[in-house]
């Protein structure tokens, strides 16, 4: 945790880093995340730990967030493309899917609809109880 903060402080707070440097920063945080979770034997996946560390670093040094913004929004714009190779793996399981397709299709479709509804309705119910609005904006 300390190392990531130190990393971020070494960076100049340039307005918009070039793509390659931004990409290097993302890789460094992923690497720290992977190494850290391995070393500490955590169940958390490395990239997720890397995300948490980068978030902490940006919170300590907001300039870093502005510097990375153009590269990350470019990368995230095509996020769904990154799932194509894993999806093509469907061809490895043609046999099992043919045998169990009813269970698989129903579990995926119904499960997805139920999960979406439960999540959204839970949040809305709780958010309504604690009314929203710009009541407690001290900083503006």
């Amino acid at each position: 945790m300390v190392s990531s903060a130190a990393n971020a402080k070494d960076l100049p707070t340039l307005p918009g880093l070039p793509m390659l440097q931004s990409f290097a920063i993302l890789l460094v945080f992923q690497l720290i995340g992977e190494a850290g979770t391995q070393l500490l034997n955590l169940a958390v996946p490395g990239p997720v730990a890397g995300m948490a560390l980068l978030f902490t670093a940006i919170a300590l040094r907001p300039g870093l967030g502005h510097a990375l913004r153009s590269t990350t929004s470019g990368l995230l714009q095509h996020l769904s493309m990154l799932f194509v190779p894993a999806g093509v793996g469907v061809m490895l399981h043609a046999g099992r899917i043919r045998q169990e397709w009813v269970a698989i299709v129903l579990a995926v479709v119904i499960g997805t609809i139920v999960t979406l509804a439960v999540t959204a309705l839970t949040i809305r119910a709780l958010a309504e109880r604690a009314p929203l609005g710009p009541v407690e904006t001290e900083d503006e």
Partner: protein
Amino acid sequence: MKPALTEIWVYLSASPLLHLTLTVCAYLLGDWLFRRSGRKPIFNPVLMAIVALVALLVLTGTPYPTYFAGAQFVHFLLGPATVALAVPLYFNFSKLRRLLMPLCVGLFAGSITAALSAVGIARLLDASTGTMLALAPKSVTAPVAMGIVEKLGGPPSLAAILVVSTGIIGAVIGPTLLDWLKVHDPAVRGFAIGTTSHGIGTARAFQESEEAGAFSGLAMGLNALLSSLLLPVLLYLTGIV
């Protein structure tokens, strides 16, 4: 002429370049069709790219590992992209603080519902244990879901497909379902889509607004974190592991 062509084909099909190029082009073609269709959810670019690539690989008799040798460069970017989610998350953090408690409870409810609904339905329909294990993390982003299933002794590549399917279905049905449930706050919409449909849902949420996308990305990250802790316990309690 003919033998030369065959030679070129043999040479190219053995190099990672061909399948990397095909992956990117299939996606771009899918994205073009999606935009041409007026963004009709059923023309999901990921779905179309997968169908086109599977058809091509089956027709040319190419085994998946050969394909993946090229496509892995795209697959690899999932890691840095996950890290990159910290940036939009930071810029929407003030809204997160406002909704902190509802979002945490919603995440917990969604994460448990995702696993139990899928495994429960599969069990009712007599699915095999491997299929149930692969279904459990279907709302978790692909690399994490594969890790979880592998640890539990299930088939990781089947998990990857179920994850992608869940993502596509959430992206296709999600916005309409949320309209129908009258959930209009972009933060809540994004968070629900991200909890259910991870990165593919997040890509869809970013099309609605940057705020929805940021919350979806946040939910995806938190769900990955929570599920990797929760799922082994949940599956143990239900007697599947």
